[in-house]
């Protein structure tokens, strides 16, 4: 009986535990969305254990590509009114034992320097970032945010080494990792080192 209770407790708390490290995207609209772009907050993008392993032990940089879309509600179909894309790069310097973070948005480049832990680097990435994408005419709008987190590999041979170590490359290889469970097999086949997340804002109006 105690074993059953313990098992149920683990089963119930596992999702809660996973929630704490689950990536989260937030699009925060200001009081005047037509004047200021939204604030983007993304947390736990580096929380994935595989991502951290590749970053720390493999020294493969992580690239986070952000795409923020502004959609306008139409009478029948919604239209894409604008789009802004930017990147954040995280790289581990083993000689200085620092995780370096930079961001590039169009003509704006920002070097945040080095951080002692992955968690600290993740917190830097999580800081609110205002994106200059806003509606320029009246109507009803919403934002759509897509974030792609990807481990950067340099050569096919390096990717093959990853593959043999159990960390797949970002191309389709349908014959990977037989004998593992179905979830891990399909991850290798379909996902590789790329993780993608999406979030939408609430609908807002511009008078």
């Amino acid at each position, binding site marked *: 009986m105690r074993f059953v209770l313990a098992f149920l407790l683990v089963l119930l708390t596992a*999702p809660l535990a*996973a*929630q704490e490290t*689950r*990536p989260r995207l937030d699009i925060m609209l200001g009081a005047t969305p037509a*004047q*200021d*772009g939204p604030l983007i907050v993304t947390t736990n993008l580096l929380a*994935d*254990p595989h991502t951290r392993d590749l970053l720390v032990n493999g020294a493969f*940089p992580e690239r986070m590509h952000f*795409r923020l*879309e502004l959609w306008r*509600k139409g009478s*029948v*179909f*919604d239209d*894409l009114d604008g*789009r802004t894309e930017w990147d954040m790069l995280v*790289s581990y*310097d083993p000689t*200085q034992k*620092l995780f370096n973070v930079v961001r590039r948005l169009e*003509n*704006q*480049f*920002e*070097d*945040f*320097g080095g951080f*002692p832990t992955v*968690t*600290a680097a993740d*917190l830097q990435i999580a800081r609110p970032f*205002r994106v*200059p994408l*806003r509606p320029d005419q009246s109507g009803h709008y919403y934002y*759509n945010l*897509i974030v792609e987190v990807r481990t*950067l590999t*340099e*050569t*096919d*041979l390096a990717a093959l080494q990853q593959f043999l170590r159990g960390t797949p490359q970002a*191309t*389709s*290889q*349908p*014959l990977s990792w037989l004998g593992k469970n179905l*979830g891990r097999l*399909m*991850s290798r*086949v*379909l*996902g590789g080192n790329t*993780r*993608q997340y*999406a979030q*939408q804002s609430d*609908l807002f109006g511009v008078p």
Partner: protein
Amino acid sequence: MRRTLLTLLLALPVAASGQVSPKSSQSLPREIRREVVTRWNASNTSGVRAADKLELEAGRDVNGDVSVLHGPLIIGGHVSGNVLAVNADVTLRATAHIDGDVLIVGGQLDRSASAHVDGSIRIYRQPLALREDGDKIAALDDDIPDEDSWWRRLEQRTRSDSRSEFLRIVQAGPYNRAEGLPIELGPLVQRPTPWGSVRFNTAAMLRTATSFSSERSDVGQRLRGEVRFGHDHGIGVGAGAYNIVDGVETWQLSDLETALAAFISRRDYRDYFARHGASGYVTAFGDHDLNVSGSFAVERWSSRVARNPFSILNGEHAWRENPSMDEGLFHIATIRASLDTRTDPVDPWSGWFASADVEHGAGTQTSIAPTSFPRLNPLGPVTYTRAFVDLRRYNRLSPTEQLNMRLVAGGWVGGDPLPLERRLSVDGPAALPGFDFRSGRAGPDVGTCNDPPVLPSRPAECDRILLTQIEYRGDLPLDLFSSWEDWPFRFRGAHGAATWVLFADAGRGWKVGTPSDGITYSRGALPPLSTFRADLGLGLDLSIIGVYAAKSVSTPAEPINYFVRLRHRF
């Protein structure tokens, strides 16, 4: 008490790790230190300069550069030159306009969305360790070895695509019953140049389902070279020689779906033939919206028999026979164009995708493959023209719903009847999933244009096809897999983990000639819509894997088909 203290001690590192400031010992890259020092020391001769807080109010016009040390710097007016902030924060108000560049070291930028900066913005959070000497400064850590910006090296490596690989091993095509797994093995050289790029690779094609005996053409080859003039847009010229196995119809299921179906369930949804020859092409590339290319090839086509590669399931069953193909030497000229305005090619929510090609072939047929219909193809010289169009429109109805449509049409346009390698079908999970792929039915088959008695291999025999597909997708507010870290569900939607799909398809194929049997129609005629196959279906798309059920509505006796697709249906 001890437990409480222990808990507190354990909590301290967690709290401390929340601090975000860069490690103070990390210095700026040398080139930045030098640039900052040079610019600051030269700034006292022009522009505006300040060693503490400086505010340029709205309406103020500065002719020249603005430089601030220690700051902060607040700009609401117009600066015709560059802005330099050393160990200072910068605020750009809504009315700020800077004609030049902005460089901030040791500070942050707070920028109104309406502020204009015509040049670049560079921000380095690391402060500059400096020594003030009157009105000049000197960097304290100039003797620290140069740390080449790691991100610059990385960007150059990833952007330039420059690479040389002595031994490149890649999968050369989908797993299939004619080859097993084709593997390309060989060197690759790829180099950017000031005017474009050059790429060259040569490879042996190894096929796992063969004996590796070159006498049986079990080992293929591929040699390719391309020169591109222009980086983001321009012209590319390429040529190659090859001895490969190719699919007859590749527009239906993707390579990955075809491979997985074959490897897992021993169902191969394509037919194959061998291509041995050489080709040259010219392509105009650029804005990913529009691409145009033209090619000319000289190829010898021949048949490939099905081998017996491994599959996980159904190993006791034989593979579907790979049909014999027409054989001969062909000269093929092709023009292709594509337009892609989709918001995202992987998960499109709006936009157009259009692809069209026109192929003109001329050659000598040395062997005619058997088909269910009597063949009118002559041995000897043949010419043919074929066109193919795939037109898709994606429409977003709301933040969580979309309506997508597709039209596929193609086939014979003129000349002699098409070789079997160029014929078409509308059959299977990618076209009409309510009808089982290549299954036996009474009477003429409008999906494959096979007429009884059909061949065991059931090749695609249609001269023309027409297919329309429509689907309605909506987010399903369920969050099923948040704790499954390794589940293939890596695309997490805004409102949930799944999308429901309602779809309908209608289409058929036909032959061109003297009307008969409900299969053959005259060259200018379209078969009656009542003869089209149609199905309805619904499914659950889990962002990477979708499970669906489809039921024929034009042939009620057809059973419900259940199938799996990867990502979107189209």
